[in-house]
């Protein structure tokens, strides 16, 4: 599963994130993305992937929060050697982003898709488009791209619009 890595200090404060890492094979050819979650599930050391100065640990989190991730501290549970981040707790508001809630929302969306690809980007963001959070750590939405000023005429807009109607999903 595609996921984000967070690194935290002794107080649990998030001090760094790693949104994605491209994998490459012999000769440097791209082979895909490193599966952070699978590596963690297999008991792998996240130091194999990255090392953050001053951090005492690194774990997977199923959302992409951009720089806002640094507004949180981590809470972990699980047996020694297999702990996971169970929640991100906002350092000032105390708002909790529960892992179980995120996973439940993902699973519900996948079930709704009934075997077809499920679009979960509004739930978790993505490496290229983190979720947008307010000052208390609540999801506002995906990062909004407002675009160029609406009053500026655009060459080729008609072509793009017609292509979008054909594709049906633009």
């Amino acid at each position, binding site marked *: 599963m595609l996921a984000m*890595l967070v690194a935290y200090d002794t107080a649990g404060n*998030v*001090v*760094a*994130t*790693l*949104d*994605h*890492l*491209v*994998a*490459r094979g012999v*000769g*440097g*050819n*791209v082979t895909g993305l490193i599966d952070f979650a699978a590596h963690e599930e297999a008991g792998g050391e996240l130091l*194999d*992937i*990255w*090392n*953050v*100065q*001053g951090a005492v640990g690194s774990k997977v989190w199923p959302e992409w*929060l*951009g*720089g*806002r*991730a*640094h*507004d949180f501290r981590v809470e972990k549970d699980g047996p020694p050697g297999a702990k996971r981040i169970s929640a991100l707790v906002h350092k000032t508001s105390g708002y909790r982003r529960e892992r179980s809630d995120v996973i439940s929302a993902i699973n519900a969306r996948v079930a709704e898709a009934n075997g*077809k*690809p499920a*679009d979960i980007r509004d739930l978790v963001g993505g*490496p290229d488009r*983190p979720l*947008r*959070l307010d*000052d208390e750590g609540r999801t506002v939405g995906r*990062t909004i791209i407002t675009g160029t000023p609406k009053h500026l005429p655009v*060459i*080729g807009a008609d*072509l793009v619009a017609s292509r979008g109607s*054909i*594709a*049906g*999903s633009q």
Partner: protein
Amino acid sequence: MADDLLANFRPSPFQNTGNDPGGAFGELGGGINPVGFASNVDNETADVIIDKDGITVIEGAITVTNAGATVIIDGSSNMFKIASTGTRSFAGPNGSPAETTSTVDVATGFDYTPAFQVYLTNSAGVQGSAWHTGHADVGATALFTQWRYAEASYLATNQTRMRFFWFGFGDYSAVTSYFRYYILQEAGI
């Protein structure tokens, strides 16, 4: 991602063109094509292959033309790709002058020092200041009071080190700066 893209395919008006010896690729679309598609229509020195592994253009280019511009992707002029990205935060220095640094080491698979891009972000965690190689604040006496910069370096085989610097005159120890970093691969592949 691949499934999402396939879901967006619609039947194409294209029929067999060029070299499709198996005759199995009657229609582009649907994402199902066990044999593959090879075209050698107009340019004898070019070879275009579409199969389950992707699109391969040999001794040619992908040309995309839109209003006002044409972009050509070829194998001779390289481009930068984002190999990895993430964020980093740390508190400032306290002294006159003083400096704090912080590092993030990433297993990029590179055995060389890559290009990079870094942004100083604002308190909302989004890219604020345009910032890559350096950022300086100027005090009332027209002297630099602080500056922040970053470097990427070769750490060890397959390891890239991002190091962030915060140099200042004064006490910034209660202030946290946030950075977005991109490690770039110069690649024709």
